């Protein structure tokens, strides 16, 4: 990185707010995904003005900038090249305003997701989207990825809970979208910004909706001797007219792994469990809990347990939310997928995953948001064995191809990032992608902001004005390489 740029960054953000020594940069060369790359420098802005001045500097020197929240992302969205400045938002971590009467909070992007709920609980409110990493991940990152979580089944994902954004564009201009109102006159640029993976601008303040804490919560654990029965239950519950707040599934391997880690009372011999949560008015929750228990039993659940108290409930959820960590204890490495399928295809997809697992001789554990068909197969491998690394990727591609075959998506909540960029052509045509590139160019014309993310690296995406080559969408086992 040019030392003149480093000097300028220090002038803007302060001497102690810029890292450029290799041993410091090492910590910023990875996120929660598989890719690695060391940035040229890391800068920690503390104000919107800092971000604006840094972007003006980057703009005038044509230096790429990669924003980063907590680095918990699983798609390599916060990976920066050697030429790039990493804009780490960790020090912009203030809750600027809690406006209980308007059911809104205004927060800086570096505020941790769970802190918003913790800060508003005393007023009887919380921030609904709850990614499993919510103890660490930040609102800025959630906005960039349009993060989900178990409770998004009933409550919606991040975009349904954001009403206003202050952002800095790649040329340093500070812009505003929306505010505390539910919507506003003109184009919905607030909604359009959410999920843009840091390719449109950098959010510097975010207005989030606060949701009333439910009066009553019931958490059920349904235990099955067959994965298929559990999967069928998912469809049956939604058909019964009940929309649970959360509907999660863990397969037998995952159940044992989690149980050894947290001792939540998950049965060690189950083939699958469903974790079902119902929220709302006391009377409604009781009725729904009864209805759901009945459906589970009809679908051959061997047992349906209900958490007796808050402590037991938290323990069950601890198992679910630390599932990835638990796998880390038993496997040297794992590769998480984030495919989505229509929910009636859950049984068929799980069979297919089992087949893929056997084909490559790799353990694939399943823990996922069954209610909305968002799978998280964890492919376990030994990173010291090149063959296993290769096979894990092949297995991942086959799972992805299967999701697409069933009419699904390559990512439900983790984002495209750098990891799934090349899969985009399997979901979108050349024209779809051209429209996306043109729209990105309205914000980020030279792609200095988070380059090489989301949009695949194809010639027609780089030079959209030139003659267009034919689409390269011939699939290799369903997915282009």
């Amino acid at each position: 990185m040019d030392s003149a740029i480093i000097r300028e960054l220090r002038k803007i953000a302060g001497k102690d707010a810029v890292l450029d020594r290799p041993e410091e940069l090492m910590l910023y060369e990875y996120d929660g995904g598989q890719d690695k790359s060391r940035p040229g420098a890391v800068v920690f802005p503390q104000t919107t003005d800092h971000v604006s001045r840094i972007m003006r500097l980057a703009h005038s020197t044509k230096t790429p900038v990669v924003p980063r929240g907590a680095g918990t992302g699983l798609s390599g969205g916060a990976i920066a090249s050697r030429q790039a400045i990493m804009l780490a938002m960790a020090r912009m971590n203030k809750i600027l305003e809690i406006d209980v009467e308007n059911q809104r909070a205004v927060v800086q992007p570096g505020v941790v997701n769970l802190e918003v709920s913790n800060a508003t609980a005393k007023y009887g409110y919380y921030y609904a989207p709850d990614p499993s990493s919510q103890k660490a991940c930040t609102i800025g990152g959630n906005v960039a990825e349009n993060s989900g979580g178990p409770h998004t089944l009933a409550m919606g994902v991040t975009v349904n809970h954001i009403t206003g954004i202050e952002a800095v564009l790649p040329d340093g201009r500070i812009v505003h979208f929306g505010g505390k109102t539910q919507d506003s006159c003109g184009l919905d640029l607030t909604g359009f910004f959410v999920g843009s993976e840091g390719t449109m601008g950098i959010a510097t303040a975010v207005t989030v909706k606060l949701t009333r804490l439910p009066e009553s919560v019931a958490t059920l654990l349904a235990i099955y001797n067959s994965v298929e029965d559990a999967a069928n239950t998912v469809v049956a519950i939604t058909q019964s007219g009940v929309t649970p707040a959360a509907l999660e599934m863990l397969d037998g391997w995952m159940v044992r792994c989690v149980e050894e880690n947290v001792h939540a009372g998950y049965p060690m011999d189950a083939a699958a469990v469903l974790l079902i949560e119902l929220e709302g008015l006391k009377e409604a929750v009781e009725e729904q809990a009864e209805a759901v228990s009945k459906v589970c039993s009809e679908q051959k659940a061997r047992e349906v347990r209900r958490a007796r108290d808050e402590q037991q409930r938290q323990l069950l959820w601890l198992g679910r939310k630390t599932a990835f960590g638990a796998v880390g204890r038993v496997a040297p490495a794992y590769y998480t997928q984030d495919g989505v399928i229509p929910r009636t295809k859950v049984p068929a997809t799980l069979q297919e995953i089992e087949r893929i697992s056997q084909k490559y001789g790799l353990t694939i554990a399943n823990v996922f948001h069954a209610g909305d068909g968002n799978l998280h197969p964890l492919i376990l491998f030994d990173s010291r064995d090149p063959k296993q690394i290769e096979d894990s990727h092949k297995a991942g591609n086959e799972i992805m191809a299967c999701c697409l075959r069933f009419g699904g998506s390559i990512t439900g909540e983790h984002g495209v990032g750098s990891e799934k960029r090349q899969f985009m052509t399997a979901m979108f045509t050349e024209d779809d992608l051209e429209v996306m590139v043109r729209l990105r160019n309205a914000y980020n014309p030279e792609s200095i902001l988070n380059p090489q993310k989301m949009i695949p690296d194809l010639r027609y995406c780089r030079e959209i004005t030139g003659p267009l080559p034919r689409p390269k969408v011939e699939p290799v086992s369903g997915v282009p390489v």
Partner: protein
Amino acid sequence: MSTVTAQSVERQLASIVGEQHVGAREVNAAQIEINGITPASVVSPGSADEIAAVLQFANSRDLVVAPAGGFTQQDIGGVPARIDILLHTGRMNAIAHYDPGDLTVGLNAGIPFAQALKQLEEHQQWLPFDAANLETASVGGLLATAAAGPLKHAFGGLRDFCIGVQFVTADGKVAKGGGRVVKNVAGYDLMKLMIGSYGSLAVITGANFKVFPKPRRTRTFACVFGSLEDALKFRGQVLRSPLQPLCLEILSPGAQEYLCDPAPARDADHYTPSQPVVGPADQWQIALRAAGSDNVLARYRRELGAAVTRELEGENESQFWRWVSQFEHNVLARHRNAMVMYTHLAIQDVAPALQAWQRAATEHNFIAAGLGRVAAGNLVLIFIPLAVDPPPATQFSNCVAAFRGMLPPGSSAEVAHCPKEAKPYLDVWGPTPTDLTLMKGVKHAIDPRNILNRGRFIV
């Protein structure tokens, strides 16, 4: 259209869609006029590819195109200088796919919304959406205008359950965003961009939605208050309670009169009640709709207590909410010179906005009648002229300026309907908290020659 004649345009259009689909044969000739401007040609393509061909042609000749669906909101927006082609999506009216087990449905843009709802009902499912005129309004038009009704309180707008959108850009690219699954973050969220873009970015050709189990039983609790202050105090109690109503609607004193089936048009310029308006003029109402079993409804009754003056169920209840949805159209059927405004307010700004509306109305010789989502800040506020003679355009423009001037910061309010003669004198869309330069940049990115709805939307 100096270098091309309407005939040569129609010949070209006929070569794309077939002769029988050019001209106003498939639509009611009276409907196609937009704020007094008659489109030179009308075309009804049968597929996205045909729309693409029409738009490529229009784009290459700088012809202004106005998309149309059910013609229910065509007068919204500014008065266009000209419309060369009215592009009607009525032939694209199929349910593309419906998967009850997956709780998803895909609809073509031209299908009337109610037709799709009927299909869902067979599986006890629904789209929680109750905007006006659903029998005729098309899916594409409802998306383009970000229409909404009272159910927005609990379910949000179309943006909150539209999971995929298909469209054709102004220069003829057939494209899409999202997909068919309920959770999906691959690519930009083009649904958000298209919903509420008023046909100014692209022609929507279809959309996918997540559907919901339909509540098996609902009940409506009507509560009457002697003042706005009391009504809003009650709203505060509901919001702080654990209750989760489907709808929470406020109705102004003047609104009651229009909650009925449309009366035959009389002398449309006069404000004369069809029957004596009973009850004090400062009587505000809040209507709360809840779903659930007897037990759950009993709980609502307990929590709401003495405030409830009336309970509605069954056909009475459906009729009441139909009237609420149709409110502005009912008013307009009686007073064609009435002005309708939609507001976007923070929850606590509803009170000052309603006061501003009443004051602006009184000071500019209008009667105020309005209702809306009292906890979402989306109100439908109507100004009914008192004048016996047609009111001057400045009466409308001054009133709009006065009203907007009194709104709390961060609010916005657009004029959804007013006499076309007044439009040149006022800003239909008004100021917005969202960056306008960027909106124009987005428009330019996919409609570089500004052929779609030129002069009608904010961009």
